[in-house]
């Protein structure tokens, strides 16, 4: 019996692992596509962290943006661990991501256990964090940073310079898109859009809670189900999240999505 008879997902069998160059090209195309028309900042940044993790062999990534109140808030994170790293910086009032926003420059920490900077954050990360190295890249335009992206690795060591440059290029595409869109729609800064994104974040976290409760899932898994359902239907994350929280959408329907084949 030379062949196994079990039917397979054609997307799985037909897919030849794309080269890194193809994945890079796809990342830029997808980020650019996201910027067309009426895009949502949360979806854009969620894709940015996902591509960064994929292309830069990071274990996780997260993005902080400055809010209207002058503080920084987390708007995207590839995992709960990454979200916690951002929170530890915010609670410590210091850290590479905040430094990157303040200086509008990349900040590299090859080993959190040996750095003598940010003592409060480093102590917190040592007890509760899951990562050893941090590369923070500013989201900036003309010298002013509106936020920063953290690339997180579980093992110490620097990223190759080419990878760092690629990470910055991905961040720049997203930033230019965010700022250009605003310039066209109104002669205004991003503050309003950031505020909307931060509010969206509240709804998305609540929706993760709903899916986690109903499906008996960990938060990372709950978020993955939310992404899968939204992307599969070409809906914004926040729209699906809002419907879940307002109980206009049955959590079971979102959870059932997973039993199908992986999309794309």
């Amino acid at each position: 019996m030379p062949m196994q008879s079990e039917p397979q997902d054609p997307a799985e069998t037909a897919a030849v692992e794309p080269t890194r160059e193809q994945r890079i090209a796809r990342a830029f195309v997808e980020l650019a596509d996201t910027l067309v028309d009426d895009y949502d900042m949360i979806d854009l940044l969620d894709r940015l962290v996902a591509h960064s993790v994929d292309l830069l062999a990071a274990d996780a990534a997260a993005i902080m943006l400055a809010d209207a109140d002058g503080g920084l808030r987390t708007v995207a994170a590839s995992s709960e661990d990454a979200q916690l790293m951002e929170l530890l910086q915010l609670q410590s009032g210091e850290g590479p991501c905040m430094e990157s926003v303040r200086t509008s420059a990349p900040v590299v920490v090859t080993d959190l256990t040996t750095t003598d900077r940010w003592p409060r954050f480093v102590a917190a990360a040592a007890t509760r964090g899951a990562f050893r190295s941090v590369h923070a890249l500013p989201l900036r335009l003309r010298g002013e940073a509106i936020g920063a992206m953290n690339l997180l690795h579980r093992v110490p060591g620097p990223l190759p310079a080419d990878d760092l440059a690629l990470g910055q290029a991905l961040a720049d595409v997203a930033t230019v898109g965010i700022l250009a869109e605003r310039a066209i729609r109104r002669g205004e800064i991003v503050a309003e859009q950031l505020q909307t994104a931060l509010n969206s974040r509240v709804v998305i976290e609540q929706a993760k809670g709903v899916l986690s409760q109903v499906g008996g899932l960990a938060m990372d898994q709950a978020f993955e189900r939310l992404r899968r359902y939204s992307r599969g239907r070409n809906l914004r994350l926040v729209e699906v999240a809002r419907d879940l929280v307002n109980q206009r959408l049955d959590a079971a329907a979102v959870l059932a999505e997973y039993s199908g084949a992986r999309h794309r």
Partner: protein
Amino acid sequence: MADRGAVTAVVARLAAEDLAEEDLARVVCEACVAGLDVDGAAISVLPTEPSRRTLWATDETALALEDLQFTLNEGVCLEAATSGVPVAVPDLTEAARLARWPVFGVEVSARTPARALYALPLQWGAVTIGVLDLYRLRAGDFTTAQWRDLLGVAQTTSMLLLSRRTRPRPPGPADDVAGAVGNGRGHPGNGVDGLSDGVFGNPEIHQAVGMVLAQLGIGPEEALTRMRARAFIEQRMLIDVAHDVVARRVVFTEEIG
């Protein structure tokens, strides 16, 4: 990254006080008039619901604008409430901007001296708590710094109102004697148990709200109210209760929730 705006700073200081909703709205509206180059301001809660209520309006025109929109059931305030994004009409003589509200557009010019309108939603996640409405007697938009300040005011006011609406004790006229608990940031019974502060940026609180609302089949505001009540009874911080919910050490039920 800019610093907190001046008016936002004024509003943020209210977290240490224990004002009734109406007094809070009055201070916010007056601070906007004093610091943001507007001629009048008003705050209404639940603008899209029959139980809507104008908490405060700084003058007759501000009040008339609220009443007009609620009577006609259209206008900047209602659009801000339903869309969840700020609405600006820097010049009411520009007909194109008013096409969205045909009746309101005519009536506002006929009945009030307002020449520019702004409406900012006061929201928490999917919940629209209210709207902050502002008007000017002459046309003109805000500067970038003013917009940023105004957005900060809206964000801070939202948290302060949410804090009052979900506070762990029976609502009523006795509300305003609660200052007795002092400004203790850490006191779980206080109206500011971290809600308007950095703690609220903790995703675990939002995740726990989502779990509790699914456990009880209720809305997010009520879920937060239950969690705060529990924290109050157990003399713990909200974040600790949230942590237990997410870790599945605590499940809310109808009886003890």
